[in-house]
Every structure is written in structure tokens, then in C-alpha cells.
């Protein structure tokens, strides 16, 4: 107990330090993020006052930055739950340090995805018509249902494993305001065996539940495009394509978050190179899978040579969107595969670079899905052009800034690495895994 006890004490110390100590860098970061957010807020107010005309949208380009952001943010939300849930179900021990940071990404970023789509409405004051006059034949309604469900589930899925840590904090901050709030949030956790068993069951159940919901979310987001009859939107592989892309960007976002947390919270011994190595490998696999889908998508359009499809195809490959398209290929395929296939470059820095490239590339991917189709309407007509105004850029930057700010605040309030899971990993994880591995070998009973 003594040795374990000391270890536990070290864990607590390390993981609670960010909650207790606030360095100058924190305030600086918050200040910058608040400034960017304020800029975005100003742009948003300007847009609400003057209508969507202040953006670069026009006819026939009716969707632009905001829809791209919507798909992008919802895509990133696949980080948390999928990684966390899948790794839990697969009993991957290395997940312990990263599950919470992943789940927080999910819960927070969903709000910004939803914000961007609400922001894209011509009449946001009529938002509740979606409920009052809901027409379920429309893919947008499927989005509403799916994303609401996902928000609820991933919030629960974040909250439940948070309970033991909240209880710990409640005890630690007893007597203060913080302690009072934590007592309220901890739902009367005492740490009894029965509660632990319930907790484990609940987590497993949620893990199982969350995966199909998460898959459905980005599938229905893809259906917004796939269910139209516009060239290169009306594609059968959009469902899996988008889900793949979502997981892809989600992992990349997670890696970036982890690198920052690792540095700023001094959690080098918790977020070790092996974590990044494993995530890097996952990223590599997703990159290859993503490339497979993209290649198929474009090859079928090109080979079929239907004029309306070719117009969009060439807009992407050689036309006005070529810079975006080829940058996307570079960022989503060439850079990640180049860095991550070689063990020597699959370091923390390497995965960071790859992830940054992937994040940029995946935003460009959404962009090059939305725009080229819109600028090439089926009927011969003055081809569209689109260039965003400062309003769209400001709102995008503002959303991103606020998301990061909320994330930073979360890190300040709750331990971003799950304390009890680390403890549990040390105590029980090692033996369980050893027992499991022994069970695979011949001559022993498989349990």
C-alpha cells in the first residue's frame, strides 16, 4: 500500500496541479482567445443586424464557410467518443490517459458545429420551427435528431466517468465554494463497491451505445449532401467517406490537444511517446482509408465522364479549386503518410506536425466538397464564384477560439487526465491484461 499510496499521491499531485496553479501563460492564452472571440462576436452581431448578405454567399453559391465549419466541427467531434468508446471496449490500456481529453473535445465542439449551422440560417429567429413544423423527410431534420442525441449521449458519456474524480475533488476542496459545487455534481458518490460496479456497467453500456450514434451522426451529415441530386454530392459512398474523414480529423484534433496539454500541464509522464505512437498509427490507418475513399470518389466521376460531374471534377482538379484540392491531398495524405509510416519520424513532434496538416487538410476537404458543386449548376448559367468576407472568417475564428477557450477552462476546473483510471490502471490493469494474455495461450483456461 505504501508504494502504491505514494504513487497515487504523485498522480494526484501531478493531475491536480493545473487546477491549483495558474501560470502567466494561462492568462495570456485566455486573453488572446477572448480577443479573437470578441472579434467573432462582433462579426456575428453585424451579420444578425444586416442579414446574410454580409457574407460572400450569392447565387448559386448558397453555402460556404458556415456549412464547411459545421461539417468540420461535427467531424472533429468523432474524436472523443469513438476513440474513447472503441478503446474502452477493446480494453486498450493505453487509453487511460487520453479518454477524458477526447470526450471533452466531443462535447464542446458539437456546440460549435451546431452554432455554425444556426448561424447559417437566413432566419435564426425562426429556429424553433424546426421542432414546431418538423418535416422528417428532410435530411436536415435527421441531422437535428442525430446530433441532439449525440450531444446528450456524449455529455453523459463524459460525465459518468467524471464522477469519481469529482468526488475526489469534492473531498479535496471541502468547505469552499468549489467543494460545494462538486458535492452537488458528484451525485453522492461514496466509492462503494456497488457504486463502482454500477459505474463500470454504465460506462460500458454508454460506450456501446455511443458508437452507433456517433457513426449515424456523420452519416446523416453526409446525407445532407448525398440526398440531393447535384453532381458529385449525390454519391453513395458519402456516408462511410464522411465517417472516415470525421474519425480522421478527430484523431488529429485529439493529438494536437494532447500535445498542448502535455506541455502546458507538464504531463510528460502521463502522455508518453507510446500514446502518440499508437495514435499516430491510427492516424496513419485513417489517412490511408481516407485516401482510398477520396480516390474512388474522384475516379468514378472522372471515368463516368458525365458532363455535369466532369465540370465539378475539373473545377477541383484543375479549375479554381485546384489549389485547395491539391493542398488537401498534400495535407491529408502525403504529409501524414510520409511522417507516420516511418517509426523514426513517428515521434510526438512528428505526429503533431501530421495532425496539424490533417486538420487544415480536412477543413479544405469539406470546403472542396461544398463549393465546386455549387459553382457548377447543372443548367448552363453564369458560373458561380465565392470569396468569403471578413465576417465569415471572423466567425470561424471566433468559434474556434471559443471552443479552445472552453476547453482550457475545463482543464482548469477538472483533471484532464482521468485520475481514477490511472490509479485503476496501475492497480488492476496490469494484472487483468496479464491474465487475459495468458488466457490466449494454449494450455490455460480461456476466461
Amino acid at each position, binding site marked *: 500500500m505504501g508504494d502504491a499510496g505514494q504513487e497515487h499521491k504523485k498522480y494526484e499531485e501531478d493531475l491536480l496541479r493545473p487546477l491549483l496553479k495558474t501560470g502567466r501563460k494561462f492568462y495570456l492564452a485566455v486573453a488572446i482567445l477572448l480577443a479573437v472571440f470578441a472579434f467573432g462576436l462582433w462579426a456575428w452581431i453585424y451579420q*444578425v*443586424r*444586416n*442579414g446574410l448578405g454580409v457574407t460572400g454567399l450569392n447565387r448559386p453559391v448558397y453555402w460556404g464557410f458556415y456549412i464547411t465549419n459545421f461539417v468540420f466541427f461535427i467531424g472533429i467531434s468523432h474524436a472523443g467518443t469513438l476513440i474513447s468508446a472503441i478503446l474502452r471496449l477493446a480494453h486498450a490500456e493505453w487509453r487511460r490517459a487520453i479518454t477524458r481529453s477526447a470526450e471533452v473535445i466531443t462535447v464542446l465542439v458539437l456546440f460549435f458545429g451546431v452554432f455554425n449551422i444556426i448561424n447559417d440560417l437566413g*432566419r435564426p*429567429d425562426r429556429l424553433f420551427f424546426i421542432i414546431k413544423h418538423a418535416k422528417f423527410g428532410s435530411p436536415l431534420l435527421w441531422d437535428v435528431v442525430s446530433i441532439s442525441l449525440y450531444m446528450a449521449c456524449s455529455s453523459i458519456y463524459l460525465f459518468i466517468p467524471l464522477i469519481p474524480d469529482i468526488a475526489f475533488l469534492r473531498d479535496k476542496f471541502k468547505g469552499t465554494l468549489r467543494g460545494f459545487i462538486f458535492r452537488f455534481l458528484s451525485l453522492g458518490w461514496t466509492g462503494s463497491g456497488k457504486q463502482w460496479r454500477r459505474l463500470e456497467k454504465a460506462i460500458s453500456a454508454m460506450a456501446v451505445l455511443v458508437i452507433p450514434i456517433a457513426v449515424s451522426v456523420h452519416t446523416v451529415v453526409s446525407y445532407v449532401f448525398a440526398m440531393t441530386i447535384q453532381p458529385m454530392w449525390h454519391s453513395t459512398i458519402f456516408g462511410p467517406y464522411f465517417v472516415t474523414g470525421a474519425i480522421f480529423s478527430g484523431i488529429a484534433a485529439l493529438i494536437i490537444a494532447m500535445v498542448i496539454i502535455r506541455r502546458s500541464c507538464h504531463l510528460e509522464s502521463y502522455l508518453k511517446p507510446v500514446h502518440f505512437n499508437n495514435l499516430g498509427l491510427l492516424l496513419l490507418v485513417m489517412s490511408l482509408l481516407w485516401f482510398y475513399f477520396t480516390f474512388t470518389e474522384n475516379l468514378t466521376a472522372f471515368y463516368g465522364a458525365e458532363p455535369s460531374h466532369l465540370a465539378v471534377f475539373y473545377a477541383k482538379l484543375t479549375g479554381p479549386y485546384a489549389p485547395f484540392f491539391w493542398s488537401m491531398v498534400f495535407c491529408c495524405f502525403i504529409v501524414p503518410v510520409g511522417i507516420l509510416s516511418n517509426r523514426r519520424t513517428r515521434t510526438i513532434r512528428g505526429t503533431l506536425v501530421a495532425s496539424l496538416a490533417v486538420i487544415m487538410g480536412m477543413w479544405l476537404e469539406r470546403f472542396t466538397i461544398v463549393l465546386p458543386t455549387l459553382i457548377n449548376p447543372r443548367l448552363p*448559367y*453564369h458560373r458561380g464564384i465565392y470569396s468569403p468576407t471578413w465576417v465569415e472568417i471572423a466567425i470561424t475564428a471566433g468559434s474556434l477560439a471559443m471552443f479552445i477557450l472552453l476547453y482550457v477552462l475545463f482543464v482548469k476546473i477538472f483533471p484532464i487526465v482521468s485520475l481514477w483510471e490511472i490509479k485503476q490502471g496501475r492497480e488492476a490493469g496490469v494484472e487483468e491484461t496479464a491474465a487475459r494474455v495468458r488466457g490466449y495461450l494454449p494450455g490455460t483456461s480461456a476466461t
Partner: protein
Amino acid sequence: MKRRDFLKIGGGASLAWPLSGCAIGKLSERVTNTTWSGNLESWIPTVCGACPGGCGILVRKIDDRVVKVEGNPWHPLNRDKVCPRGQAAVDLLYNPARIQAPQKRVGGRASRKWQEITWEEALAILSEKLIQLRNEGKSHTVIFLGQLDSSASAELLSRFMRTYGSPNQIQFDPWEILENVYSHSHGIRDLLAFDFENCRYILSFGAQFLTNWPTSLEVQRAYGERRSKRDLKIVQVEPRFSLTASRADSWIPVRPGTEGLLALGIASVMVRERLYDEEFIDRFTSKFEDWTDQRGEKVEGFRTAILRRFRLEDISDKTGVPLKTLIETAKEFSSSERALAIADYNLFFHKDGFFQASAIHALNALGGFIDKPGGVVRQRKAPLKALPEPQVDEIAKKALSQPRLDWPVKSSRAGTLGGNPYEINCLMLSPQALPSSYPFYRNFERVLEKTPFVVSFQPYQDASLDYVDLVLPDTTFFEKWQMREVSSLSMKTVVGVGQPVVEPLQSSRPFEDVILSLAKKMGGPMASNFPWPTHQEVLRDQLSGLYEAERGSIFIPPPDEVQLKILEEQGWRFPRRDSLDAFLKDIFEKGGWQDPVYHFNLRTATYQNIQRKFEFLAPVQDQNQETEPEDAEFPFQLILYDLPFTPTDSGGNMPVFQQTLGFQFESEWKIWVEVNPTTAEKLQVRDRDPVWVESPSGKIRTVARVFPGLAPGLLAMPLGKEEVFPPEKKLSDKNSPLRLTREGGDLRDGSVSQRTVRVKIYKTGG
């Protein structure tokens, strides 16, 4: 900032586009005029004044607001159809650029400082000036410039100018070219009509009859009907593939300025192969064969001249039309039972336009297509009563004998001194804006600057006000009593009339009433020649002629017209109304008067020269093909053409109309230059690239559009397009294609062509 000051005319007519203010606020603001009471709908017949056509319209009113214009089904010209100008005309009435009351300029010109004055003051100022000039014996130095589409208004004004003593009622009317031709060949100084409804073959030399004629609505209806039966062939001969050319059955591209030459080529084939109507030539034409003049000398007739002077191969070379096409067209034209060869007002701008138009019209004589169904016919004028002959006093008579100053309308010769017999002391500008295709604006600006006193009757503010000293704003046609005879281009005898649909807005007054008031204010001989209190009384007098007429009827439902025709042909007529008052009440309620009967073979009507025959003009002039010589530095020939429905007025104050003009090139406000694809490739200019088009006179910046409807050596630019939203509109838009045309020269001596210019074209940015 200048624009905002400029817009403070007349009590705060504001043109600030209301994009200020909260969108959410506007969410609750109802931008309509619906109230819960009233909203009484009424339909008032009148005549449209948006172009010289004079179509009959029904104006839809809600309470006292004009809301829509539809066609009057009882008006024979347009029936229940309206062209885009007519539809957009509702924008003219409540236009934010309207001048609301008479304005006097305070401060220097272009200072844009105006003072609103009363009509009494305004009329006093103008009448004092006019009387002063008259007493100094300078009444001939007063010029009235501009169109007056309504013949009733034009007549009133000419009466005024005559009794005042000025020969200078000047307007820019390209149709004059045809009037000159008919004057020579028929002895009629008027336009002749074309019977489209019965025609089976149209050989049009650049005539934009579907869109740029005052009678286009009638032509379009005939076109539609013939298209359903597909028994009319239209052949369009012109350098540019125009909208009318696209509706034709075949387009014969020809070098600019060689239309007349091609006509002579066709005539040549007809003469050589004796494909002409011999009987017609014998009976109804003169100077076809050689003839002797008064001195007893033999003069070549049309036939000899054609056979001697023109070789088909040469013509084919110079026009660029293959010999085979030329001969086939000639054969088709002459073998048709009912054909028309049509020349258009465009020839006005060519230096030998008279001869070209003459050659084209000669084809009608060769084919015998005059005064027959489906041919060239003369409209029978409505028997309106003439106004009593005015008493012209000695002062006026003396002044009227002075030479007319046809410039600045017909020439670009600059200046007042040295070039002209006398200076201009007062310039009166008609309520109708000069068309944006008016070619001599450069000189016109100079004239305006030098004229000491400029009065304008325009209803709308625009940058031309920079040259004006006094404004007496006219109303729109919705607010006045009107009478418009249908243009002579139509064979129908129709007089459309209209009552005011709404009261004049603010303090604007109908131009015709202002002329009457002015005459009365001037007193003496002027006042006695204008006894009518308002224009309505003038019209009553003129319309009384119809009341007393032995033919025709006030507008009746179309089925009844058949009955009327039958009755008239048998010598009966519809019963006369009880009294002149009853007649007038009825005519204004129905919208006009018409006579549906037309007799062909009326020689006395069709030819009014001494011999009562068509007189051929032997082609002695060598018809030129290039209006400008070849030039290595300026290798392209730029054609300037009129957009649909814009020849007399670009419709700048009708944004709904202006917006539609560039539809063929998907352009709503920007001007463009059309380039042949091969040329574009050679110059490495892509569609929509910004380019400079430069001529020896100037250069403008525009956008290139690839268009296969031009030969590789040609470019084309539209006239009539406003690039800016009024009242930014300037008298001479910096970017107008007219900037490229040549300065100097005089259309009277034919030394310039205003519709083709030698240019070069290159991309911006090197």
C-alpha cells in the same frame, strides 16, 4: 460627397439606399402599401409613352396608386401585349429621381445648388427671356432640342416655335434616312409601312424589326403567328448576329457598310435574269429604263446602270458574301409571291446611308412588292382635325427665314463662332432624354457650356443638370392627357388617346400645358395663337375630326372589328355618337379610335410625286465598303449596335428594364465588347477578361465576351446600356463606347460613320 449634395434637389428626394438600420428591425417592418381599407382596383386605358410606338395600355390602379401596366386588347397595334419597357414604365412614375417642382439654379453651373420656385416664377423667367430675345430680333437663336414622341405634343411645340419665330426645332431621328429615300422615290416625306402579317419572305438588311422599331409589338405578334404556321422565311443580312438574326431562318454575314452594295448585287441578278416584275415596272415605276432629261440629254436608267457598273464577283468580294448565296437569295426573293426588302434606321449612321437605303428599297420595286398585301404600303392617316392656321407676325417671319442649325444634332463640328451663322442664346431641352446612342454628345456638351441660358423640361435629375439654368419638370405619361397616332411604320390607322391616370406628382406639370401657359404669359401674338387653356382642349379640337369622320370607330372588341370592316366596305358605318362631348367621353374611356379597313392598290396614296410612280435612283455612286481605311495600328472594326428597345431612349430611369438588357451575355449592368472566338484565341483573351478597347479618339476599359456571331476582324459593343444606376448617369459616360467614335466631320457631307470605328483591343495589365 458630391452625389449627396446633388441629390438634395426639390425638398429632400433621397436616394440613399436603405441598407442602414437593423435587419431584425426590418423583419418586422412591412414594406408594402397594403391597408385594411380601400384597395379599390381600377383599370384605366391610356397610351404608353415609354417609346414612340404609342401602344394602348390598361393601367392598373389600386386606390390612387399605379401598380401595373397591361396591354389594351382593343388597341390594334399591340392588343393585350406589352413590351418590357411598358412593363417597367411603372418605375417612371414614382421614381426617386423625379424633380418635384420648378428649379432655378443659384450659384455657378455644376455647383449643384438649386432653389425651388413656383410655376409663376419659372414661367415668368422663361417668358421674359424669350420676349427679350424676340424683341431684339433674335428669336431664331432659340433652339428646342430633343424628341417629342407624341405627334400631338410635337405639333403643339412646332406651332409655338413657328409663332415665336424660330426654325430650330431639332431632334435626332435616325428614321429620317428612310424618309429621305421615300421622299425621293415616292414623293412622300414620311415612313412607309410593311405588311408583315401577310408577308412570306423578308429580306432584312440589318433591320431590327423585332425589337427596335416603334411597331415592334405588332411585328412580334405577326412573327409569332407566322412561326406557328412556319410559312415565312426571314433572311437577315448584317455584320453582327443580332437578336433578330437569331430569330431569322438564315443569317448572311456581310461586311459593315456594304448592305446597300449587296442589295445592288441582288438587284443585279434580278435585272440580268429578268426576275423582276415586268408589269409592275412598266406601270408603276419610272427611270428604270434610260430616260431623257429636260435638256434633252440621255440619262442612264436603273437597269443600264446596274448592268454596266456592277460585276457580281466584285460585289461578292467586297461584301464578303459568297456568290452562290447572293444568287440564291435573289432567286428566292424574286420568286416569292409576297416579299419585303427592309432597310433600317441604322443606315442613318453610314456615310452613304441614303444610297444604301435607296438600293434596298429598289428591290421592293423590282419585285413589285409595293402597294400589295405582304409588301410596302402606306398607312392611311386618321382624319384628325388640323389646328387653325397660326397667325405668324413679321418678326417671326423674318426670323423663320434664317438658316436652321442642324448641328449639333447631325454633326460633330465644334464651336459656335466661325462654324455657324449665328450664336445660340437659349437652348430648351425636351423632356425626353437624349438617347445614349446619340453620337455627337461631345459637341453637344460644348454647346451647352457656351449657351448662356439653358432650360430643361426633364422630369428626372441626372448629371445633365450641370449645364442647365432652369428646370420646368414635365410629368410622366401617366399624368397627362395624351393622343398618339400609331407610327407610319404600321399600316394600321389608329389614334390612341389617354386621360391622366393619376394627378401630377408634386408640382410637376405636363409639358404641353406648360407650353400653353408660356404662350399665354408671353401675351401678344403668342397668346392669341394658343387660345386653349390646357392640352385637353387642344386634343378635343383635334379629335373632333374623328367625330365627324365617315369611317372608323372608337375602339371596339376585336370580334366586332370584323363586323365594322364588313360594314365599311359596303358603305355603311357605325352610328355616330349623339354629341361631340359624348364621343369624347367615350373615346377616352375606351382608349382610342381606329379604322380597320385598308385598301390596297391606292396609287394616289402610295405615290405622291408628279408622275404617281416609283422613281428609281440609278446607282451612280460607287458604294463604299469600308468606312474607315485599313489600319495596321487599329486592325479591328468595332460595330456599335442598339440594344433591344433602346434606340430613342436607353430607359435609364427604368431599372427593371435596364436590368434585362444584357441578358444575352448574362450581364445586368456592365457593358462588354464581343470578340470572335478565333480572334480571342489569337489575342489570348478569355471570356470575361478585362480589356482596353482603343481607337484614335480615345480608349475605354471593358470586359471581353467571346461571341461567335461576328467575323474574325470585327468587334461589337452595345449602345443603350447604362453602367451605373441613375442618377449617376452622365451626359457622356466616361466609359461609353461612343467615346471611341471619331470627332470632327459632318454627317451631312457623309464623311463619318458613327457606328463603326477602327480600334485595337488588348488585355489590361499588359
